[in-house]
């Protein structure tokens, strides 16, 4: 089992024939992901990586039955691409693109919610169900199949966390990189109950960072609704206030959004909080061996 995607998930790629889209779609195909086509306006009717190319998402969905779209279009066009996917009946859009305008994402997400389309990202590594389906840019080889669910705002910390978990002899059910932008799609409180309900998942790793209050929301949610053990790391304990740390959303404004307050809230909610990302794997081993 897994959450959101598995070996049967049919995926199209928006921005299929571009440099990034091509490179990563090829990697995903090699991993075993069922990429059934792609969309590049103006190139409809052609073939790319052995799959059909369409001018619009609506055509692609009608012809292929795809339910998920992996979005690689350039930042200026991401808002439009996500609106199009939602309008065409896509169920989940995984938005990899970095640098899209906040206002565009705000509008696109509001419309997606209205249309019942889930979104992941933007500015994220994507989602992977180990050894079944990879929709994103993560190195597939480090995600061994297992019983740990992973949710992370950071791409490289997703890899770091998954790698440690696997080195301890465990593995991953599904790992979701939710992205570090100010407005993102699925977040902790939507993903945690999915892992809670997934019979394969035994424990959850949650990686957050400074800025915003999603981790605080997660803490109260976990306290009320999550029975499975959760191990958490919050990046940016040593980050200065008022400075943006790489991710657009990773900023402590005034005294809100610090790592300390998030760690405290999570600890109070019974989460196993580690102070260094180097301790994620060991903590999982400790928690599951109890």
């Amino acid at each position, binding site marked *: 089992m897994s959450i959101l995607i598995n070996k049967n998930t049919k995926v199209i790629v928006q921005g299929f024939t571009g440099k990034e889209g091509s490179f990563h779609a090829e990697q995903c195909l090699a991993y075993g992901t069922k990429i059934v086509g792609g969309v590049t306006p103006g190139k409809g009717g052609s073939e790319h990586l052995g799959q059909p190319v369409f001018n619009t998402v609506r055509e692609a969905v009608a012809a292929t039955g795809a339910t998920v779209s992996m979005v690689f279009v350039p*930042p*200026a066009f991401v808002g439009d691409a996500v609106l199009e996917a939602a309008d065409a009946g896509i169920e989940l859009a995984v938005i990899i693109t*970095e*640098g*899209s*305008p*906040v*206002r565009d994402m*705000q*509008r696109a*997400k*509001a419309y997606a919610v209205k249309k019942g389309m889930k979104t992941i990202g933007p500015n994220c*590594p994507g989602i992977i169900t180990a050894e079944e389906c990879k929709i994103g*840019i993560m*190195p597939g*080889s*480090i995600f061994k199949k297992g019983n740990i669910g992973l949710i*992370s*705002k*950071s*791409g*490289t*910390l997703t*890899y*770091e966390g998954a*790698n440690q978990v696997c080195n301890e002899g465990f593995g991953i059910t599904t790992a979701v990189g939710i992205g*570090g932008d*100010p*407005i993102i799609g699925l977040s902790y409180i939507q993903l945690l109950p999915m892992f809670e309900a997934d019979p394969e998942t035994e424990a959850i790793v949650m*990686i957050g*960072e*400074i800025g*915003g*209050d*999603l981790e605080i*929301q997660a803490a109260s949610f976990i306290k009320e609704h999550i029975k499975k053990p959760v191990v958490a*790391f919050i*990046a*940016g*304990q*040593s*980050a*200065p206030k*008022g*400075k*943006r*740390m*790489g*991710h*657009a*959303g*990773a900023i402590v404004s*005034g*005294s809100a959004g610090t*790592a300390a307050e998030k760690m405290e809230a999570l600890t109070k909610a019974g989460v196993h909080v580690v*102070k*260094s*990302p*180097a*301790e994620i794997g060991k903590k999982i081993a400790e928690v599951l061996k109890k």
Partner: protein
Amino acid sequence: MNIHEYQAKEIFKRYNVPTPNGYVAFNVEEAVENAKKLGGSIWVVKAQIHAGGRGLGGGVKLARSLDEVKTLAQEILGMTLVTHQTGPAGKLVQKVYIEEGADIADELYLGIVLDRAREMPVIMASREGGMEIEKVAATSPEKIIKVAVDPFIGFQAFHGRELAYGLGLEKEEISSFIKFAAALYKVYMENDAEMIEINPLVKTKGGAFIALDGKMGFDDNSLFRHPDIEAMRDESEENPIEREASGYGLSYVKLDGNVGCMVNGAGLAMGTMDTINHVGGTPANFLDVGGSANAQTVAKGFEIILKDPNVKSIFVNIFGGIVRCDRIANGILEATRLVDVHVPVIVRLDGTNAKEAAEILKNANIKNIITASDLNDGAIKAVACAKGN
């Protein structure tokens, strides 16, 4: 990106958000000329820096004669202004804004920011104008009225009423306040602003509302569609090293410690800093080499880290995904040819092509390079080197 008060007020004027008249001056002569142009008998001389709290720091002063304008401009131009937002080093004042005096009956606060939890802009208003809004929020949050605006419907009259009645405005003031707030919301949305703050928003004795101050920040990802705002960028307000780094696709923030860090990905970069702290050291910087790192960007990364004389060791921590480790290894070799890396470099490469990378570094046989097996090992070694062990 942030802009100056005088620039924010230029934008306000375009949207009919009332502000006092004023002109920016880069020297004392201009300051006096501007005061003459404005006329009247009372002027405000305001330091223009990208930080709040200028008044308390002595950067905003009232002049009652042209001579006084001259004296104050002399005093403020070239001063290093220290406020709660500049840090102890302060900021050099290179321009002043000369503004006509306003007749003030009351001082309010009005701001718009993105509410990340509700995923929509929220307008904040308070009667506690002129105070630090963070302090008001901390001590008496009930004094701040917050109204979220769903962009699908935009700013409506009822939003304005919620704000106006929340502030307890007089009946005859309400319609002009709503007009003001509506215009400000338009400024916010049409310019892809990240935040607008008017503190204080002044109510004149005649019952009109005027933006006595103006602070604006913009979403960097949206600047490509606002060339007029991009043109307002004041590079002298930005950290020159951070600016240089961003030109190479590197995201750099200087910190106070002595262990330099070069990492791929913002989250891992923060996590690396945290690990260095956790094992008893102090990071010298945040540096994300990004998703397309190559020999040139890695070399640049070393150069930028080494500009900081406090750096005693450098921890290169790469988890290869899109960034392949062999590419980073080659970058390190290249960098040691281009830049004099005179401190020990601790390298931890994991993920895509990590084995090839290890071979490259082994064959390179450069002294000063120490390999680490994982994140924790690397942090411990880097901290030990920085301590001279």
